């Protein structure tokens, strides 16, 4: 089989690019050929992803369209006779971005606008979470499949043995990993942390890790941190996998107040390192974290600060969350995800897919794989 992957954009620390490269490894192991292409390619990944203009799709090749933003040339792609599998990763609502990064907002608005046409013209529509799949159905997909994100957690290095954190002699460290962007609500994390530090843990530290949406937005966060918790907040970008693993190992609790998540890999990574996770129950977070995280809707930062204190100091609570986290991770094991991916690709390649009888056929293949 030949599978060409097409991304709207590719970047060095981009989760979807990373996943596409992991897919390619799997495809290679299954004896499948093909290439990986993107409309926009960032620095540092030359050679691994080719410009979309170089795509020459053989008639028998299958196109796997990763959709997370507006894709130029989509109409031409969709008019190709090849069979097509859509993998929807969700698109950040543009409303969060207009003030800070107008061009990115345009790409996001375009990405959402393209969704109905994509859904209508692919042979099978899949998404990396049920939350995203529901959006596909709302845009007209008759049936959808869920192929969770393939996450290589081993790249982050070893997990410390025994109970991590909770040591009263240790400086509590709060961690959030995610793009420095308004919808991730790092501002709210900083405000919550400043209260936690003031009323519960005067020597606590906050680590914010993520590539900035813009230099200006990162500067805005730094100024806010200097104002509310001077000297206690580190904001880091461009970390290697090993360095990111070090940040997880140094943390005592993971605080995610993001308002939009199509999947949220860092939640899984935090569970992998045995960290208690506090998060907003938005987007795909409830289905990814399940009962292994403390999901909180409260807007009162005092409640969030007290919850941080509880998650850091209550050792039995930490142990229970860690136990549940391990069970949760098993549901996202790479082999299970790879099996679902393979089933979705094979179902798309099947000429029976997309007819009225395909719903059952695809479901059978995917169920067998799971």
């Amino acid at each position: 089989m030949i599978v060409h992957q097409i991304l709207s954009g590719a970047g060095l620390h981009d989760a979807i690019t990373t996943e596409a490269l992991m897919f390619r490894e799997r495809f290679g192991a299954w004896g499948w050929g093909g290439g990986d292409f993107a409309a926009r390619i960032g620095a540092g990944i030359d050679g691994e992803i080719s410009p979309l203009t170089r795509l020459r799709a053989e008639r028998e090749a299958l196109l796997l369209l990763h959709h997370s933003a507006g894709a130029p040339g989509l109409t031409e792609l969709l008019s190709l006779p090849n069979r097509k599998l859509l993998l929807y990763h969700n698109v950040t609502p543009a409303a969060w971005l207009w003030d800070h990064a107008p061009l990115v907002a345009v790409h996001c608005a375009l990405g959402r606008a393209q969704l109905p046409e994509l859904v209508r013209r692919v042979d099978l529509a899949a998404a990396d979470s049920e939350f995203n799949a529901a959006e596909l159905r709302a845009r007209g997909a008759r049936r959808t499949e869920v192929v969770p994100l393939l996450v290589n957690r081993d790249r982050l290095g070893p997990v410390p043995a025994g109970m991590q954190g909770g040591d009263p002699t240790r400086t509590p460290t709060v961690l959030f990993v995610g793009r420095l962007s308004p919808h991730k609500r790092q501002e709210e994390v900083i405000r919550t942390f400043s209260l936690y530090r003031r009323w519960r843990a005067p020597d606590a530290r906050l680590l914010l890790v993520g590539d900035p949406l813009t230099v200006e937005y990162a500067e805005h966060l730094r100024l806010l941190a200097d104002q509310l918790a001077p000297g206690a907040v580190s904001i880091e970008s461009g970390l290697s996998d090993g360095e990111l693993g070090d940040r997880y190992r140094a943390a005592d609790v993971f605080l995610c107040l993001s308002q939009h998540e199509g999947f949220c890999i860092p939640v899984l990574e935090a569970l992998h390192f045995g960290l208690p996770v506090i998060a907003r129950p938005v987007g795909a977070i409830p289905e990814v974290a399940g009962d292994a995280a403390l999901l909180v809707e409260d807007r009162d930062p005092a409640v969030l600060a007290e919850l941080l204190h509880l998650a850091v100091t209550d050792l039995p609570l930490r142990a229970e969350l860690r136990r549940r986290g391990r069970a949760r991770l098993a549901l996202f094991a790479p082999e299970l995800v790879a099996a679902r991916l393979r089933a979705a690709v094979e179902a798309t390649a099947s000429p029976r897919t997309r007819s009225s009888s395909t719903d059952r056929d695809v479901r059978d293949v995917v169920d067998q794989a799971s």
Partner: protein
Amino acid sequence: MTDPESAVERARQSAAARRAQGAYPEPVSTAQPEPESLVSADKLLQWALIEPDVRNVRSTRRLGAPITALKRVLLRLLSQYHDGLIAEQSRFNAHLLITVLRLQDRVEQLEQRLPREGGER
């Protein structure tokens, strides 16, 4: 032990108790509301007039100060070209926006007249 299901409730109680003792005097919510998905006319007018901030032109490399200076000199040298470009684009944006707002007003006026005309039939 606090079981995970009751942790949030315990945090609420703890926050209320500590607040009663004088802690957490800040406003109850510091969270910002989610942005509106539709941009207001005022905002559109603000965006229509393009005013790039030269302070945003910089090098992000380490020891990038000379590159920043070079970029700003280049901008100054090309300012006639850029000023013309910005003026033309802003003029188009503003006129387009004014046209859209006029059309919006006319649609609203027509919508207000519709029920009355319907009732006369």
